[in-house]
């Protein structure tokens, strides 16, 4: 048996070898770009399909009408008002709690088993399927706390869902504040909270804002947990207005009103066999998708701006 020979070292062989390996490099660039653009292309197809299917429903009537048994008269008034109010509850609860929890974990928590337990919990909650939050809300908010199938239940459910998003984003941006800045403030005699509120928090506003918007953009499209708590799709009235004309001018009864939201309205229309409702679904989907993409774009822009403005 002949000993296998090493590849020859003469210039031509080497050149041939390098050339063939470089071709494979080029090929991979093509494959990589193809994979990337296939994904981006499907996003484009998805959006244009929604816009085309729903094209005849982009009217003022669609935005200002309640759902109806006749597809052509149905609209999303109750859905977008409901979505806005639910988001208000979610933002008002998830953001403060999430930011404060993140501050605790990043700035205060001593390194011990107890902090470890909280950390593992946060990581784990980020991976819990959204529908499980729905089951939690069904058992806890709807039946144990007797909040019913109301706006406050929905808002709190989505708040639980996005809490890990807010916590993780806030921690990341707190972490990006250099240690030297903290030391400077401590060196002047600041307490931990003073260091946090005067320096660390203000310098990480961009990241926190980004996390908040990304969290809310996830919440606004979330359907499954709200179906689980029993959200209705057919709501032909608006919640009590939060502002009234008698003192004290603010009313909170809307919190306990029943509701529907954009994604549930869309789901309801998608599941109907009548194709006329499909174009309602497409129009609602286009609006919903437009809203989430817009929120994401704003978040990316804020992140970009803050990265540019503070350069450590």
């Amino acid at each position, binding site marked *: 048996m002949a000993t296998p020979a090493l590849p020859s070292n003469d210039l031509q062989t080497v050149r041939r070898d390098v050339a063939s390996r470089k071709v494979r490099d080029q090929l991979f660039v093509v494959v990589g770009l193809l994979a990337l653009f296939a994904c981006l292309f499907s996003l484009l197809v998805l959006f244009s399909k929604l816009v085309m299917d729903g094209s005849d429903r982009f009217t003022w009537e669609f935005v200002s009408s309640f759902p109806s048994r006749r597809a052509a008269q149905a609209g999303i008034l109750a859905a977008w008002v409901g979505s806005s109010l639910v988001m208000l509850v979610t933002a008002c609860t998830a953001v403060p709690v999430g930011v404060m929890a993140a501050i605790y974990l990043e700035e205060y928590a001593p390194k011990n088993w107890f902090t470890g337990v909280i950390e593992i919990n946060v990581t784990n909650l980020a991976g819990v399927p959204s529908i499980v939050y729905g089951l939690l809300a069904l058992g806890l908010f709807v039946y144990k706390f007797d909040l019913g199938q109301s706006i406050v239940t929905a808002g709190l459910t989505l708040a639980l869902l996005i809490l890990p998003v807010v916590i993780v984003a806030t921690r990341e941006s707190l972490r990006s504040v*250099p240690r030297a*800045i*903290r030391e*400077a403030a401590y060196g*002047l*005699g*600041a307490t931990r909270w003073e260091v946090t509120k005067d320096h660390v928090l203000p310098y990480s506003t961009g990241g926190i804002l980004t996390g908040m918007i990304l969290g809310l953009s996830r919440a606004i499209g979330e359907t499954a947990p709200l179906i689980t708590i029993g959200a209705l799709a057919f709501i032909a009235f608006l919640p009590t207005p939060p502002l009234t004309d008698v003192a004290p001018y603010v009313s909170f009864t809307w919190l306990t009103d029943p509701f529907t939201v954009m994604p549930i309205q869309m789901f309801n229309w998608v599941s109907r066999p009548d194709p006329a409702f499909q174009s309602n679904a497409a129009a609602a989907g286009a609006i919903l998708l437009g809203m989430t993409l817009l929120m994401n774009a704003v978040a990316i822009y804020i992140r970009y701006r803050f990265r540019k403005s503070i350069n450590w």
Partner: protein
Amino acid sequence: METTMSTAADSATTGGHEAPRIAINMDGHRETAPRNAAKARAEGLSFHYGAHRALKDINLEIPERMVTALIGPSGCGKSTFLRCFNRMHDLTPNTRYDGAIHFYPDDFNLVAKDVDPIEVRMRIGMVFQKPNPFPKSIFENVAYGLRLRGVSNRALLEEQVEAALRSAALWEEAKDRLQASALTLSGGQQQRLCIARALATRPEILLFDEPTSALDPIATAKIEELIAQLRDQVTVLIVTHNMQQAARVSDFTAFMYLGELVEVGDTSRIFTNPSKKATEDYITGRYG
């Protein structure tokens, strides 16, 4: 000494609503103790990171309104020692101080467990290796320490900020752009801003941790000149890896090696006639 104590007591009892009366005389110095008396004294000071003993039984006196330099090869513990004075190590878990740093004229132990590190830092300022201004305006950087202490009167803040910037030789460059971001300053200016920030709170000791290691030679010369002037108002303790710098700015020099204090004395003597072999080896460039 008695009179200054009573000022503090007065303001503490009169409550917080009237504008605080504050003597504004940054150029004159507090007559708390005669120059060259002990301002602080380390006695048997050891410091541990977990199981590692980084400082071993250090005894050193820091004289009032003098510049004391700490020199030694990298890793000798000079920065670690400096950071004991304002308890920066308390920010790191698993650290322990043994022994004492007596602080005069009050005579209490800076590193004792029941002494509050925040209180210590309110009396002993620090300037760091790299300029670390807050990403706020120049004015707010200098005013921050005063704001922490509850000063909110605008006129008073302006006066004190100006005084501090003058003491740090930055006033002429900064007076027209007090509202500009501190990050628009050059590196040397930023470091002088950090000095002004520390001075504004009238510290009794000012710690410098290799303050010029990130600066160019011209900026370094300005800072050195400044430190030499500062000895009229504040006790200075400076860590430097640059022996010429120690020779230029300090009155006393302490040489540290492997976590121990090898030798301390008049700067001129340490550099011309060191009594220990290790010191001589270091200043003649055998190591480090």
